[in-house]
């Protein structure tokens, strides 16, 4: 990383109207502090201190988080090298969402104790808060913050985006759980969750289009309604997949996933002494 005084000189043939080489222009470049980048990691560490997470197996949450963070950093570096700001923004947003999902997984037991509606709202807010924090400390945020001079409402749009993202994940998990209420299996979750994520993004996109069309009288490309949610659903599923794999592989997180899906937990206590097994008994 480079810091200190930079000198930049410009050159161009001015055809006699001036000299070819201009005088160097000085600029003192200071490195941004890396400390804010630690904040979302500290939040995850803090959530691990919750009573429901006080077990060594809970620390496996770092596995999907680190994998997604590394992937996001790699994609971000590639985007920066290619000078592709759109891809860089997407990579930073995806990395931030990984922290939001980790928070949702760590809060799963607490959220499962609430009624369904409240649980969905709390899950969405938890996701939005942690994701937004991770996004705000990311390098992309400084650039977005500078864009306020052209679009002052950018912070509001981002807040809405993360809340909608939280509602999509919360809604998708709840609807998947509802579809799997008769029988829980990894395959059933893997097949149903992408569909419900697409449905949720489709609903969110349609609502946005209606607001833009009828509220602000803006024209909208309706074909985007079909493609956009599909892409967002695939990206969302790609982000949640490492957490699903963790949940399928680790019994602690398998129960946490069931909490998030609002499915009954596996009962590890011995069955009651009864000659007839009830059909609803957990397997």
């Amino acid at each position, binding site marked *: 990383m480079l810091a200190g005084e930079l*000198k930049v*000189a*410009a050159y*161009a043939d001015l055809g006699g109207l001036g*000299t070819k080489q201009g005088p160097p222009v000085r600029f003192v*470049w200071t490195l941004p502090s890396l400390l804010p980048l630690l904040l979302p990691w500290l939040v995850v560490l803090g959530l691990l201190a919750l009573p429901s997470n006080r077990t060594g197996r809970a620390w496996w949450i770092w596995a999907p988080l680190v994998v997604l963070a590394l992937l996001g950093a790699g994609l971000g570096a590639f985007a920066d090298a290619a000078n592709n700001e759109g891809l860089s923004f997407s990579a930073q947003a995806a990395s931030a969402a990984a922290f939001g999902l980790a928070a949702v997984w760590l809060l799963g037991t607490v959220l499962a104790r609430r009624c369904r509606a409240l649980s969905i709202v709390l899950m969405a807010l938890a996701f939005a808060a942690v994701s937004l924090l991770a996004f705000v400390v990311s390098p992309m945020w400084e*650039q977005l913050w500078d864009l306020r001079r052209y679009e002052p409402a950018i912070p509001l749009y981002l807040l809405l985006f993360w809340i909608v993202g939280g509602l999509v994940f919360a809604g998708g998990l709840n609807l998947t759980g509802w579809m799997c209420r008769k029988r829980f299996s990894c395959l059933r979750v893997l097949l149903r969750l992408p569909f419900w994520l697409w449905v949720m993004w489709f609903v969110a996109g349609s609502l946005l289009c209606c607001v833009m069309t009828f509220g602000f009288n803006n024209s909208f490309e309706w074909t985007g309604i079909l493609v956009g949610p599909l892409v967002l659903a695939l990206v969302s599923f790609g982000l949640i997949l490492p957490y699903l794999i963790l949940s399928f592989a680790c019994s602690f997180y398998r129960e946490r996933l069931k909490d998030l899906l609002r499915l009954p937990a596996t009962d590890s206590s011995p069955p009651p002494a009864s000659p007839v097994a009830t059909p609803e008994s957990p397997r």
Partner: protein
Amino acid sequence: MFAGIALIWDQPKHKLYLDLNRNLDLTDDPTGAFSSTGKEFQQVLTNVTLPLKTATGLHPAILDLHLFTDAQGRWAQVRLHSRSLWQAKVAPGGEEWQVAVVDNLFGPEGPVVAKFLLLRPWAVRTNRVSFYDPTFGIVPFPSHLFWLGRPFQLGRRFETDGESPVCKLEFTPQQPPLTELKLSGEFVYYAVLRDTNGYTEVLREPAGMVHVPQGVYTVNAVWLKKGAAEAFRLVGEPLVVKATAATNLVLGGPLTNSVALTRYGRKLNMNYQLVGADGGSYRLAQQDRGRPPEFTVYHAGKKLQSAKFEFG
């Protein structure tokens, strides 16, 4: 409808039909059919002569029409470029000038004749002019003009008795109070300064002392020339000259290659600038886009990187 003229654009056949006699019948305009060039969705018609209704009668205007549409034909756009102006070549001091009056065909109040004045050396008469960009020396038609060291009251009138209408300009010498203006800077080919309520000045003088009518002027246009190289001052940083008493005015070159550095998040934005002796931004008139300006970054006395700026 365009300027009160009905038209049909037969896009697939590259044809434009104009209702030149304005009777809403496009079958009785034998000279109103034009063929366009260009691609399917972007077609161009050049040198289309239209009779335009103005307060002083019908005036012919020669236009280029750029026609656009989308693939589905849901909308169509017409962009108009005027090729018409009233002009004369005059050489009062042995030096040839283009003295031109330009109609505003596209104003909100409809076509208005002789709305602008354009005064520049005859050699650069083919340079592009835009109403909305004073960089090229065009000004709203002034009541007073200071040109070649002499103040005039300026008038115009139209004579439509002959075969074709004629626009006549009248230069009536004036004797306003003058003040000293010390000009410095190099390569100034001509400059246009405007006093909002008074004189428009067209300067062609070399560096040195000149006498100009008193006023507070805004520099509208500065054109530089040395050999084949030409450059012009960009608007955006208005340069105000308070010439109510003797004053100095720096204009033109030498030009300096420079770069504006601004932090943009964790990136350093580098914007190329061509700076004049007056501190304003200039641009080369013939910029070779295949050879953009370059830059080199140094850190601790060592060369870090060299690259080219990108246009955009």
